[in-house]
C-alpha cells in the first residue's frame, strides 16, 4: 500500500482535502483494509465528543431566521418545478450540463473555490433551470467572495441573439440610496462594464447581460463590485466577487 496515502486519514476526517484528494483517499480505503478499519474506529471514537460542548444559548430569534431561510430555499425549487420541461428537453438539458462541467474541469478551474458542496449543488440546479431557457453554456464558474460574505456563479451562455453573461448572486449586502452592483468582464488590464443590478431584499440577484462588445475578446475574469452609483464607467467601489473565466 502507498504509505503516503495511509498517512492521510486525519486530513480526511478533518476535511483538509479537495474533492479529488477526497475521492482518491476513499478509493484507497477500498483497497487498504488498515485505513478502512482505522477510519471506522476513529469515527466510532468520535461519536460522543460533541456532548463535551458546554451549553450555549442560541441567539434571540435564531429559530425564525433559520427556518424561514430553509423554507424559502424550498420555494425557489417548487416555482422551478412548475416549468418542468418534457422528458426530451430534460435529457438534453442534462447532457449540456454534463458538458459544461467537463468543460470547466478541462479548463483546469477549481470548481468549489471554497464554496461548500451544498451551495454548488444549489447553483447547479439554478444553472440547469436557466439552461433550459437559454441554449448552451460555454463556461460557468463560482464567484469567489472578496472580503464579503456573498457568493454566486457566472456563466457565459450562448443565447438566440448571441452571448449572454448570466450572473447569480446571494448574500449580497443591501444597497443604500443610489448604490448598485456592477458586473465587469476583465480582459488583461481592461475592464468592460457588463451591467448593473440591485439585489432583492434577501440579498439575491439574478441577471442576464448581453455580451456584444465590438471586436474579438478573450475574457480573463468576471467581477462584481459595489458601486456608489449605477453609472460608473470604470470600477470605483470595492470588488465583492471575483473569478477567473
Amino acid at each position, binding site marked *: 500500500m502507498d504509505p503516503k496515502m495511509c498517512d492521510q486519514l486525519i486530513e480526511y476526517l478533518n476535511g483538509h482535502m479537495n474533492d479529488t484528494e477526497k475521492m482518491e483517499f476513499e478509493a484507497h480505503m477500498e483497497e487498504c483494509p488498515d485505513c478502512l478499519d482505522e477510519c471506522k*474506529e476513529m469515527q466510532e*471514537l468520535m461519536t460522543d465528543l460533541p456532548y463535551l460542548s458546554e451549553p*450555549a444559548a442560541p441567539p434571540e430569534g435564531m429559530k425564525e*431566521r433559520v427556518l424561514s431561510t*430553509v423554507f424559502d430555499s*424550498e420555494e425557489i425549487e417548487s416555482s422551478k418545478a412548475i416549468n418542468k420541461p418534457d422528458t426530451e428537453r430534460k435529457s438534453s438539458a442534462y447532457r449540456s450540463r454534463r458538458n459544461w462541467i467537463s468543460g470547466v474541469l478541462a479548463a483546469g478551474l477549481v470548481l468549489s473555490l471554497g464554496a461548500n458542496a451544498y451551495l454548488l449543488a444549489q447553483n447547479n440546479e439554478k444553472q440547469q433551470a436557466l439552461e433550459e431557457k437559454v441554449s448552451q453554456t460555454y463556461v460557468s464558474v463560482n464567484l469567489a467572495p472578496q472580503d464579503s460574505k456573498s457568493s454566486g456563479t457566472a456563466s457565459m451562455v450562448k443565447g438566440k441573439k448571441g452571448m449572454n453573461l448570466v450572473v447569480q448572486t446571494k448574500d449580497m449586502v443591501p444597497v443604500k440610496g443610489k448604490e448598485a452592483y456592477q458586473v465587469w468582464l476583465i480582459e488583461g488590464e481592461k475592464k468592460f462594464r457588463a451591467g448593473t443590478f440591485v439585489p432583492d431584499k434577501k440579498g439575491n440577484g439574478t441577471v442576464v447581460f448581453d455580451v456584444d462588445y465590438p471586436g474579438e475578446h478573450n475574457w480573463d475574469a468576471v467581477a462584481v463590485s459595489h458601486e456608489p452609483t449605477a453609472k460608473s464607467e470604470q470600477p470605483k467601489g470595492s470588488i465583492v466577487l471575483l473569478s477567473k473565466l
Partner: protein
Amino acid sequence: MSKLTDFELYTKVQNGDKSALEQIYDRYEKLLFSFAFRMTQNKDTAEDVIQEVFIKLWRKKGVYSEEKGKFSSWLLTVTRNTCLDFIRKAKGNEVELEDRDSLVKDEMSVEDQITWKEERQKLKSAMHLLADEQQKVVDLFYFKGMSQQKIAEECGIPLGTVKGRIRLALKHLKEKYKAAERGGTYGPKNV
C-alpha cells in the same frame, strides 16, 4: 399523541413536512448550537452553521439511513463537517473567529436545562483523567479541526506520530467514559 422518533420525523421531512423539520429543530437546537459554538467560537458563525445544516437536511433528501447509526450521531457529524468548512473559509479570509466568553457567561442557567447534561459530566470527568497532552490533542484534532502538520507544530511532536497519538487519546477517553457510564448510572455521580 406519542412522541415520534427521530427517524419517523426524518422520514416526514423527506416528504416535505415542515412541522417535522421544526420538531427536529426544536429537539436539537441547543445541542447543535452549543457544539457549533464550541467549534467555531463565534455565535454568528454557529448560527450560519445551523442554518446550513438544516438546509442540507431539508434539501438533500435521502442522505441519512438507519444503517448509518443513530440519527443524532449523523446530524452531529454533518454539523461538525459544516463547522470545519466554515473554519477553513474563515482561515482563508484571515478573519479571526473569537467571541467566546460573551455568550456562555450570561447563560449559566442553560446548563440545567440541557438534555446532554449527564453525558457531558461523564465525558468531562473522563477527559480530566487524561494526561494534559492527550486532552490537548483531542481538542486540536476534534474541536479545532487542525491538520496533522498544525497539530505536530502545536504539540511539538513529529508529524509521523500525530495520527497514533490522536487515536490513543481518543481510545483512552472512550475507556474512561465507558467506565464512568458503568459506574454512574445507578450509583452516586462520579464527578
